[in-house]
């Protein structure tokens, strides 16, 4: 009893700090949830009490905007992007680290540079290329620039350092080919990294607004964040409807995070010991 009390006391500052930061992080989201259940006017008056207007907001949202197709598009683009990008980028990250030599290190440094290219600078040439290749308004067009993600390559390259080379050597002696080693040894071992990579890639793909806005002009191809952005530019802004849309646009990424969080942690604990 006494002991636990002592321990609690010792942990108090830590918990207070963590709670405060958690609160700082979560409060704006709590506010969105409250806002989604209130009338536009009440939201602007700064209410912090959940209201009973959720259903009304939903009805206006659904009747004003075609949210179904936009949601479906976003899901399609994000899932495909995440899958393809993880395969291509992880294999490259693995390649850069496990088979590293001076040349590959230099190529990698070159790739790092491409990460620094501001999108605004290459937007015009890229659009030009897209237009010529008829990639505008297509799923392929949307995912193409995200497939080879320097960020993911970097993540896998960094994390591969913790991947024990002895496993690779042992497998080679057993006569396993290099691709086999990657898929049979590396992928299962690096589950944690994949979970993290998946969460992040999905998030980026889902929230990718500028690119989508540039290449998707057809109503049938527009994404959910584009729809949210359109909602803030009208002569009249229905906050209830807007906040509900903001909430809906946040849900999928949150769900992915929750879903992967467990395997993320599980993968972590088992990762290195393999």
């Amino acid at each position: 009893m006494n002991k636990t009390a002592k321990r609690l006391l010792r942990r108090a500052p830590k918990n207070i700090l963590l709670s405060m930061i958690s609160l700082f992080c979560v409060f704006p989201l709590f506010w969105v949830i409250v806002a989604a259940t209130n009338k536009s006017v009440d939201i602007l008056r700064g209410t912090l009490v959940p209201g009973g207007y959720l259903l009304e907001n939903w009805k206006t949202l659904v009747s004003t905007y075609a949210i179904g197709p936009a949601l479906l598009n976003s899901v399609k683009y994000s899932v495909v992007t995440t899958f393809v990008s993880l395969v291509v980028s992880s294999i490259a990250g693995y390649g850069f680290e496990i088979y590293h030599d001076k040349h590959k290190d230099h190529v990698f440094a070159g790739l790092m540079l491409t990460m620094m290219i501001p999108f605004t600078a290459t937007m015009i040439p890229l659009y030009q290329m897209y237009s010529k290749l008829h990639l505008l308004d297509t799923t392929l067009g949307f995912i193409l620039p995200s497939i080879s993600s320097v960020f993911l390559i970097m993540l896998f390259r960094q994390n591969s350092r913790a991947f024990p080379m002895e496993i690779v050597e042992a497998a080679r002696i057993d006569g396993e080919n290099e691709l086999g080693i990657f898929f049979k040894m590396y992928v299962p071992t690096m589950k944690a990294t994949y979970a993290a990579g998946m969460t992040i890639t999905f998030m980026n793909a889902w929230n990718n607004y500028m690119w989508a806005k540039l290449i998707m002009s057809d109503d049938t191809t527009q994404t959910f964040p584009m729809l949210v952005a359109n909602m803030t530019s009208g002569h009249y802004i229905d906050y209830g409807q807007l906040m509900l849309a903001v909430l809906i646009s946040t849900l999928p990424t949150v769900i992915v995070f929750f879903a992967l969080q467990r395997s993320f942690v599980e993968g972590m604990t088992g990762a290195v010991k393999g």
Partner: protein
Amino acid sequence: MKKRILAMLLTGVMAATLLTGCGSSTDTVGTDTETETEEPAEGSGDDAVDAAAEGPQTLKVWCWDPTYNINALNVAADIYREEHPNFELDVEEIDSESISAKLATASTSGELDTLPDIILFDDTGFQKNVISYPEIFTDLTDYGFNYEEFSPGKVGMSSVDGRNYGIPFDSGTAIACYRTDILEQAGYTIDDFTDITWEDWIEKAKHVLDVTGCPLLNGLSCYNQITIMLQSAGGSFFNEDGTANLTDNAVLKKTIELYTEMVEAGVYTEETGWDTYIGGMNTGRIAGAMNGCWIMSSIRSAEDQSGKWQITNLPSLDGIEGATNYSSQGGSSWAITTSCENPELAVDFFKSTFGGSTALYDEILSTGAISTWLPASNGEKYTVPDEFFSEQPVFAMITAYSGNVPECYVGTYFQNAMMDVANAVTEIIYSGTDMDSALSAAQDTLTFEMSQQ
């Protein structure tokens, strides 16, 4: 070793260039098989109508507000379809900033077939776009559109060098709207704010603030407010020859002087987002609004404030020659692109609707879209008292105001000038820079931006 990497990169680049090269060659074949681009029809009348009936009957449009211009288009399409059952309109909602981005990319890449048939532009950016991307705009001068039935100032907004590139849409006539219930608490009526000057306005606004705690106005930074005040006296950021004119500009200086006083007195709140701007009036935090008449649709969205609003004209700039109580802000016009395969159809559509149907304007009036087509003000709904605005016949009032709006020179570099002036105003208000040096810095920046183009 470095050479080897370079060689490798080059090989990669070459391979990739080959790839794109292939793409573009197939593309040329593709465009060749498509329809030949049509030359603008000479003359007008029956020829044009015949031509309109032959080509494709679907028009693709880019515009941005479902409750406003998109709604207006759809109503227009329904009206046009009564006579032309095959007519289809494919409206896509794209915000005006994305439209600029797409124009830029389409124009520099020469891929004009990515553009729709019709695009809506803000009047303040129309000439800029025509001058920057002349290849995108169809010259409508010889298509026989009834421009003479529109207010000349409005038509001028979308004309360059005497050629017409746009079809006028909504009016941007500026109005001042006030919460009469709040004014009443301070002992004022709408008449105390009608036909007054800005100095008078500021004194009264301070009193309202003292009594009720409500600023009379807010705005998206200073952009719209400065434009409205400047143009109410026919002022401009430029000389007639197009050169920057920020330093020796009495109208601009008076405007900034008054604006600074308004902000410092707390009677004008600068907002950073459209949402908080609209929010200010909808919650009753702000007791008024001053903007193009389209702002009424935003005011109206607070249904619980029905009957508490009235509109009137603007204050005038004190001691300025040519000062009036009228101005304009916003308003937009349609452009027909050169990638439109059936421009005759597009012109005919506009002629029969936005340039020929009082029914259309009556129908879209409730959204706040007020016509610049002069005969529309004869529509029956224009004279009906408006319940929301305390039974004032607001539309007739606005139509009357619009006749008094002074003509102004907008200029191609309007957007640049506006940003530079906004920055000067920020320096004056928040850093205490004196007006002359702030404006002369802005003049230098603007002249710089206009150089080397």
